[in-house]
Structures are given as C-alpha cells and as structure tokens.
C-alpha cells in the first residue's frame, strides 16, 4: 500500500530549494501545510493541530537553516522537537508509595480500550519488581469480565480479589483494600467496567470508588486508534474523576496514534506505558521521541540512528567502510556486521523502526524466515576456516563440500552464498558513492528526511 510518507512529500516540495540563510515565511508555511495534513491523518485533534502549527510557525520563521539541512528538513526538525516537548520529555512510571504502604491504582476507560488485559500486564510488571500485588475485579457489568481478569491474573501468578457480579463496585473495592492490608499486599489494582465518558451515573461510580478507598493513582486506558473524540474522552475523565496518567493500548497495530498527542495536550498528564501486543508481557515504556516520529509518519528513524550509534564501534565501522569501498569485504566482515545488527535488536526490530515499515509491512517480509536465513548463512560462514573467510577465492569444490557438511546444509546453499557474496562485492566496486564515500562523512548515517 502506498504510504505517503511525510518526509517524502516534504522532500518533493523542497527539492529545488537549497536556501542558505533563514527560514522564510513561505518555506515554513508550505512545509507546515503538509505537516498539518499528516497530523490530521494521524488523528491528532483538529484544535490541537491548529494550536501546534501556530506554535511551530512562530518558532520557525526566521530561524537559521542548519548546515546540511534544507528548509523542509529544518522545519521537520523543529516540528519534531516541539512534539517531543509537548509529549513530555522524559519517561515516567506509575508512582508507588514508599515503604510498606498500600498503593491503590484504579483503571478507567471506555469499553474495549483494554483495561482488563492492561491491568494484568501491570500486575506482571510490578510482580517482577518484587511488589506483592493484588487485583480487584470491579467490572460487574460486562458478562465474564471477572473470569477474564481471574484467568489473566492466574497466568501472571497474581491473586485476584472478586465478590462476583452481584455486589456494588464500591463495596468490592473497600473489601479489596481490607483484604490487601490484612495480607500485606503493597499494590492493589482495581479493574473497573468500561464506561462512556458521558454516562453520568457510571462516571459517578468511579468517583465513589475513588473517595471510598484511598486511590493514589488513577490510570486512564485509551485505545491508540481513537479518533478526534480522544480529547473529549480524556478531558471528561480528567474533569469528573481526575487522572494521574494514561496508558495507550494496541500500539502494535498500524495506527499512527495521534490520540497520544491530543490527550497529552488536553490533559497534560503523562503517558505511562504503551500496550504493544496480546501477550501479557507486551507492556512497554513510553518514549515521546518515538511517538513523535510515528505520528509524523517517519517511523522510528531517530531511534534507529541512536541504536546504531550505540551498537557500532566507530573504529570497526570505519574499517568496514574502507574495505567496502575497495571491495575487500570478506566473510569475516560479514559476520561482524551481522553481529552488530543483532546488537540493534535483530532484523525485525530494525525493520519496525524504518519509516513506512512501522508495523504494517513487516509481516509481508516475514522476518521470521529472513532471520532463519541469516542464521543459516552464519552457520555456513562459521564452518569455514579463517583463511577461507578472509579469502573466498580459496573455496574449491572439496572445501565447499566440507563446509556444507559442517553447517549441515546442502552444497548448493554454500554455492549460492558464495555467488551472492561475489555479486555484492562487484556491486560495491561499481557504486563507491553508495557507501557515502564521496563526501568523506564516514560512520555517519544521513537522516532520511
């Protein structure tokens, strides 16, 4: 599917523009027009977009264009910075009370946001940290909601307190607190029923729970696919009940997740975690910078660059580049580049961070197969002697047979690898510019936007 990438669009607009000095009003406005559409398509609330664009515009006009960037890139840089600032510059976690005091966490949200699943996921996280955690089933409305929490709690090895679906949620919560205190629990998480933010009676119930037991953290669970209405939902929950943080669920889909920005802008509350999958362990830290580039449709390019810089030894990278340029790249080098890739989290995680590849395109590539293939290649190379690795021309049929036996593969596969390798070497020879050698900027990734 054609995914109109914002950075591509901007690159087209500014293709012919290489103005040196300051950002002009025209530069900024034409870039921001595209940014605006990108944000709206990502479901950022219209009003938030308007305000945001205004802020960026004010900041951007008259700014110096940094060396090596074109005006469009400069605007994106500012947009990105502003977005990260808006989403909170550091990651936060659920605040727990110090010492042995019981921390009561209440989960709230619309139907289907993923409260029950998330409740169990948090419990798992807290358990890992050594906190004795109790779950409390207060969704007495949805059929089988209590069973769902019980089953998930059991999977996490966390106790679930429930009194069936005939009791009042406020009474259940009170009883759960007593039970927790009596049995030395440190954290109590109350799972509540999904409710509409305009359902006064149901919202009243949450306030009642909150005032009946000493809730110290109220967490709003929001589906990351939520549209323009996210601001209404968040501000109503904030006004009526008061929230301390937000958890965004279902971010493993291909949604751009503009709701994150909207909610943050409207409530000012931190986003604590993001739900990244169906398994109970798939609850991750929230990174404002990653979210910003995702909303802008630029993948996690920034994160990737960061990771790459951490993983790749500068010196090694420099040597590798030299070799590539001279087409002296050998199997040893191949191995070390694979190792570096693994340090970055493997092929699937790198693909996931690429712009336009976020979520959607990975299954098509089938990373499982690709990684299996890489493993086989690796085992073939491991079966070579160091001399063979450094000098592939040594590989005669009998050596190849030995390698095939050693790696447990067919000799045809060894042949294929050697052939591919030689082709790659030829290609490197033909395109020295491709390796970034022209301008002599070595070991550096150029930003793809």
């Amino acid at each position, binding site marked *: 599917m054609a995914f109109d990438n914002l950075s591509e669009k901007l690159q087209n607009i500014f293709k012919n523009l290489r103005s040196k000095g300051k950002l002009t009003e025209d530069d900024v406005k034409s870039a921001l027009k595209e940014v605006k559409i990108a944000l*709206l398509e990502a479901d950022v609330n219209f009003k938030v977009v308007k305000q945001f664009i205004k802020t960026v515009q004010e900041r951007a006009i008259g700014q110096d264009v940094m060396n090596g960037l074109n005006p469009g890139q400069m605007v994106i840089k500012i947009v990105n910075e502003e977005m990260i600032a808006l989403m909170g510059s550091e990651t936060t976690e659920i605040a727990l009370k110090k010492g042995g005091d019981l921390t009561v966490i209440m989960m709230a949200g619309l139907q*289907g946001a993923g409260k029950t699943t998330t409740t169990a996921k948090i419990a798992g996280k807290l358990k890992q940290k050594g906190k004795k955690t109790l779950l409390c089933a207060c969704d007495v409305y949805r059929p089988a909601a209590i069973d769902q929490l019980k*089953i998930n709690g059991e999977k996490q090895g966390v106790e679930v307190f429930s009194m069936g679906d005939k009791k009042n949620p406020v009474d259940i919560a009170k009883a759960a607190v007593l039970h927790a205190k009596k049995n030395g629990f440190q954290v109590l998480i109350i799972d509540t029923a999904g409710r*509409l*933010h305009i359902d006064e009676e149901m919202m009243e119930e949450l306030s009642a729970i909150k005032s009946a037991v000493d809730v110290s953290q109220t967490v709003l669970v929001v589906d990351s*696919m939520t549209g*323009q209405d996210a601001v209404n939902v968040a501000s109503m929950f904030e006004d009526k009940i008061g929230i301390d943080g937000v958890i965004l669920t*279902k971010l493993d889909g291909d949604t751009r997740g503009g709701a994150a920005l909207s909610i943050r802008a409207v409530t000012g509350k931190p986003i604590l975690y993001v739900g990244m999958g169906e398994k109970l362990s798939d609850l991750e830290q929230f990174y404002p910078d990653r979210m910003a580039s995702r909303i802008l449709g630029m993948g996690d390019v920034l994160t990737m660059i960061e990771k790459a810089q951490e993983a790749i030894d500068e010196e090694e990278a420099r040597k590798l580049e030299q070799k590539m340029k001279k087409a002296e790249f050998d199997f040893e080098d191949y191995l070390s580049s694979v190792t570096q890739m693994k340090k970055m989290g493997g092929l699937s995680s790198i693909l996931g961070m690429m712009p336009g590849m976020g979520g959607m395109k990975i299954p098509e590539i089938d990373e499982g197969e690709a990684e299996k293939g890489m493993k086989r290649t690796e085992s073939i190379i491991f079966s070579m002697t160091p001399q063979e690795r450094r000098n592939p021309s040594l590989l005669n049929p009998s050596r190849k047979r030995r390698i095939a036996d050693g790696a447990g593969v067919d000799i045809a596969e060894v042949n294929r690898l050697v052939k591919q390798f030689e082709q790659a070497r030829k290609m490197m020879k033909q395109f020295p510019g491709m390796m970034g050698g022209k301008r002599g900027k070595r070991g550096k990734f150029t930003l793809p936007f």
Partner: protein
Amino acid sequence: MSEEKKSFFGRLVAGLTKTRDNIVSGIDSIFSGFSSIDDDFYEEIEEILIMGDLGVKATEEILDSLKVKVKEEKIKEPSACRQLLIDSIKEQMQTEELAYRFEEETSVVLMIGVNGVGKTTTVGKLAGKLKADGKRVVIAAADTFRAAAGEQLLEWANRAGVEMIGGQEGADPASVIFDAVASAKSKGADVLLCDTAGRLHNKKNLMEELKKINRVIDREYPGAYRETLVVLDSTTGQNALSQARQFKEAAEITGIVLTKMDGTAKGGIAVAIQSELKIPVKYIGVGEKIEDLQKFSADEFVDALFRTEEDV
C-alpha cells in the same frame, strides 16, 4: 415500515444527540455566522467535518463537490449551502444497494474486527434480534484466544435464548466453526452467527487463521449465504480505514457494523468508509441493550446528523 423507520430515527437521534450537538450546532453557526461564501467559510466547514472523523480525503471531496455546486447554482448566501452540504455528504456515501439478504436465507454471518470493538456484544445483539424475528439461530464462539470470551458470549446466548457452540480456550477456531456448521446443519438453523477473536489487521498469522475459517465454511457449508461483517468502533479514527482495507484483503467483506455510536464520537468514519471503500455500513450500535443494534441507512444517518431539535 413506518414503525421501524420511526424507531430507527428515534433511537438514532437519541443516540446521536451528542454527535448532533457537535456537528449541527457547529455547522448551523457557520451558516448563520458568515455573511459571504469565502475561504474562511469553507475552512470552518472543513474543521467541523474533520473533527467528526470524516478524514482529510473525504472532507476534501465533500468540500470540492460543495464548491462546484455553489458555483453552478450561483449561490451567494451561506445559509443556502446547508442542503448542498447534506447532499454532498450523501453522494459521497453512495454504495451499492444495502442488502440484508442473509436474513431471508440459510446463512453464515462471520463477525470480524480488531480487539475491543464489540464483536461479541454485536453477535449477542444480532442473535437476539434474529431470534425475535422468529429465526432459528446458532452461535459459534470461535474466539478461543481472549480469556473468558466464550463465557461472555454464552451469557448473551442465554439472554437471546439461542444455542451456542464453543471450544476450549486455545482451541483451533476453525475446528469450533466446523462443529458449529455441523450443528447448524443438523438443527436446520436459519442463521449461524460466528464470533471470532479480535485480531489486529496487520498480524499475518491471525489473518491466515481467518482465511482458514473461511475455507472451512466454504467446504462444509457450501449452500449457505455468506455475510462477513467487519465490526468497527465508531470512536476509532482514520485507522478504521486501514482496518477495513486489510480485512477486505483477507476476506470478502459484505458490510460494516459501527459500534459505540452512543458516545460523543461523530461516527464520521462511516462517511469516510463508504466514500473511500464503498463498503456499506449495515448496522450501528447505539447502546448496550439488544434493541440498540440498528439497521443503518446512510441518507437517514446524514439527515439525522443535520436534524435540529424542532424537526424531531
């Protein structure tokens, strides 16, 4: 017919009150607040449509068609644009004739969608409606993944008074469907309603599982009329388009069910979907009760969005 129509309107309008407050009051203030048709006027309309989750593309198309009409009919007064805007939205929503043929035939209705949109609830409500219409209904609980999903559906089946075929948690959903088809056939059921596990549309193996379910139904129940409904949460934004598109690749989608229309979400995604994908919305959910699942009519939906209090 008129009875049903009234109740459709009554419920829809009641369910959409908040929506209407947002869209209509906004729109009406534009029509009365502007003295001439200019860029600002169009920009205001754009804002209101986008705030209604209609999306950038559908909004642009609606505005373009509105502008053409204004020019052709030489309209100068903003107030005269109201009806033109209604017409433009209706035109955008045109799809093939709405069909509820599955109600008349021996049929299998497959309910699919991402997690948490309300598939199980919709299956329960639809079972209740069909049962009330005198149909023999069997429900298949093929969501064997989510903890306690089967129990949730059983509760709905009991409320509706219909039979449910289920499987163990973790069982192969296709095998549940296989059993359900056998049961539906032996009992001479009119409609087999299949609930499936929520799946994110970008997860390859889950979409494969869906194809497998389809193959089982095709093979075991070749004579049955097939209806495949994608359930979408009306609070979902533009990602709903992506969901519908990708489900369309894995299965032959015959319609959309839009749930949770009783919130403040505008449900404008219905416009976007019909406009861009030409898949008809067939049902909307406007509340928690069995009768809160309503058949959908695009024209009436748009009318309801623009209807003022006095009209009701």
